[in-house]
């Protein structure tokens, strides 16, 4: 006799979430704010045990408490940060393997990956990709703007311009999937993918996160929609800080009202939510 075992959800999922992002994409501020909230029990997420090493973000936590912008993590600091958390009685690890974000750049620059990353990729079935859309500036080409007068010249030699930001993200996802032994012929359900558009306040927009990604990186969105299952990826907006801390008033506000009371996320429909830890919760449901 044959029995069929039917379980809910996907069988054999690895319960760790990988946070990936290039340098200066807002990973530090998010994790600092996340940790402060979790510690202050401002969220339904708790720490399941004390993280072994939070050196990477202690500075950011301190600076925010003083109303200062966190400084950019040095690119050479390849500190790995692991936060053991508990959500609805489930123990999960939040892993940020590459604090500076430089290893992420190296993957698309040298087209190779080290052993440690490969292990991390194979043990995580949920990826969160941080992108800071404000920093992505449009370039003008002949298909977009019709200049009245185009002075055309023949270039003398073939120069490689390096990858644009958009193709870097595509190359990164292709590479990570390759090392996780995932093909692109069938729609992907594992790993699930959350695209987080960070520093949302910089955009000063009322658009939905999906619309912003379509405007800023349309080929990346097209690529993701083609190869991922619709239910396995989501796009969010995130402002971990809520506003820049560049005026005395803003700094005062942070010191008076405490950093954990600032920051918000934007869901797919464009709705804002003060609880930025929900981002992790939603990514767990993907």
């Amino acid at each position, binding site marked *: 006799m044959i029995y069929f075992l039917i379980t809910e959800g996907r069988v054999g999922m690895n319960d760790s979430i990988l946070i990936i992002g290039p340098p200066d994409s807002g990973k530090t501020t998010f994790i600092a704010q996340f940790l402060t909230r979790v510690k202050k029990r401002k969220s339904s997420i708790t720490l399941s045990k004390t993280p072994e090493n939070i050196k990477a973000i202690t500075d950011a936590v301190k600076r925010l408490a003083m109303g200062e912008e966190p400084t950019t993590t040095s690119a050479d600091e390849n500190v790995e940060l692991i936060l053991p958390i508990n959500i609805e009685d489930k123990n999960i690890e939040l892993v940020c393997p590459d604090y500076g974000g430089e290893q992420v750049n190296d993957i698309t620059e040298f087209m190779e990956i080290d052993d440690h990353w490969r292990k991390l990729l194979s043990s995580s079935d949920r990826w969160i990709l941080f992108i800071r859309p404000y920093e992505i500036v449009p370039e003008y080409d002949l298909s977009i703007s019709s200049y009245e007068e185009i002075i055309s010249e023949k270039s003398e030699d073939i120069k*490689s311009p390096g990858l644009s930001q958009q193709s870097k993200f595509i190359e990164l996802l292709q590479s990570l999937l390759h090392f996780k032994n995932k093909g692109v012929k069938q729609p992907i359900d594992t790993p699930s993918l959350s695209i987080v558009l960070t520093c949302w306040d910089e955009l000063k927009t009322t658009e939905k996160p999906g619309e912003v990604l379509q405007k800023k990186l349309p080929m990346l969105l097209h690529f993701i929609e083609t190869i991922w299952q619709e239910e396995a990826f989501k796009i969010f907006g995130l402002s971990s800080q809520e506003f820049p801390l560049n005026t005395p008033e803003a700094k005062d506000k942070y010191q008076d009202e405490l950093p954990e009371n600032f920051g918000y996320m934007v869901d797919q429909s464009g709705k804002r939510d003060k609880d930025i830890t929900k981002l992790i919760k939603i990514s767990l449901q993907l």
Partner: protein
Amino acid sequence: MRKKCNKTDCPAPKGLCLEHASNDHPKCEHWQGTQTDQSVDIQKKVNGKAKSLPWTGEPFQPTDIEIVSQRSSPLIIGMVGSAEAGKTSYLGMLYTLLFNGIKFNYWSFAGSSTLAAWETLAQYLKIKPHGKVEFAPPTPSNPDYYSLYHLALKRGKLFRDVLFADSSGEVFNIWSEDTQDQNAENARWIYEKSNAFIFMVDSVALIRRRGAAKSEIVQMAEQLAANLKGRPVAVVWSKADEIGNIRETIKSALSDDLSQVLGDAQVFEVSNFSKSDPDILCHQNNIAVTEYLLEKLNETKNIKLVPQVGASDDLFFNYRGSCGHE
């Protein structure tokens, strides 16, 4: 692995470029230089036990095709046309349009193993300060120069690896006069291996060189048709924003000749200059050329099996296996 700096002690791309003291390492002459063995060794040491990706992002060479042929038999689209006919620019514009969010009607973008190569083509269509555009330099004309540009595309559940094969127009000019010329090796390869062709007709050459340009184009079309064996062709009039300036007699004579030589090949007019948004010549037609060929290649081929039943008196030839007889 991509190119790196060949200057000793330069930390680029990890750090700032030594020459420019900035992040401008792609502009540095040492970055452009070929990679030395020493720099490879240093890099390997730094990265420890690193595993490389099978693709580099640079154009495929024929031996690279196996990177994608493991998962699907790739479709090769051969770019055919004289020098300056716009073959390389066509590819640059195709990528630029996808980059800017324009999509095929039925096919969706599932990645590319030659992203850096596409970006190199697309940079020549970028508008620099003061409205300056530097078009691509002529494609190298040595007979062993190959560049294949890859797109992975999906149509519903159907997955296709598509490779666009580009080479210099001069090589095709040689090939159109003598297909066996020893300097036309890559043109021969493209002609033999391609599943479909984009045949470029240079509108500006027809304005400037009139009859001479026409006869070159017809000669090349005849060579293309010689051994086509039903492979689809898209006839593409490039720089078509100027098409009105071709003398009417030349234009209609060439159109007649091409439809006679290439039969039912569909004709398109394209331009890299967008005059409006959306622009038919630039935004729609560049995409439509490739999509037309993809759709043609996707059509189910009629299987032409002619059964030969019982045509012989010989028992041996009439034997149809024992299963039919108790």
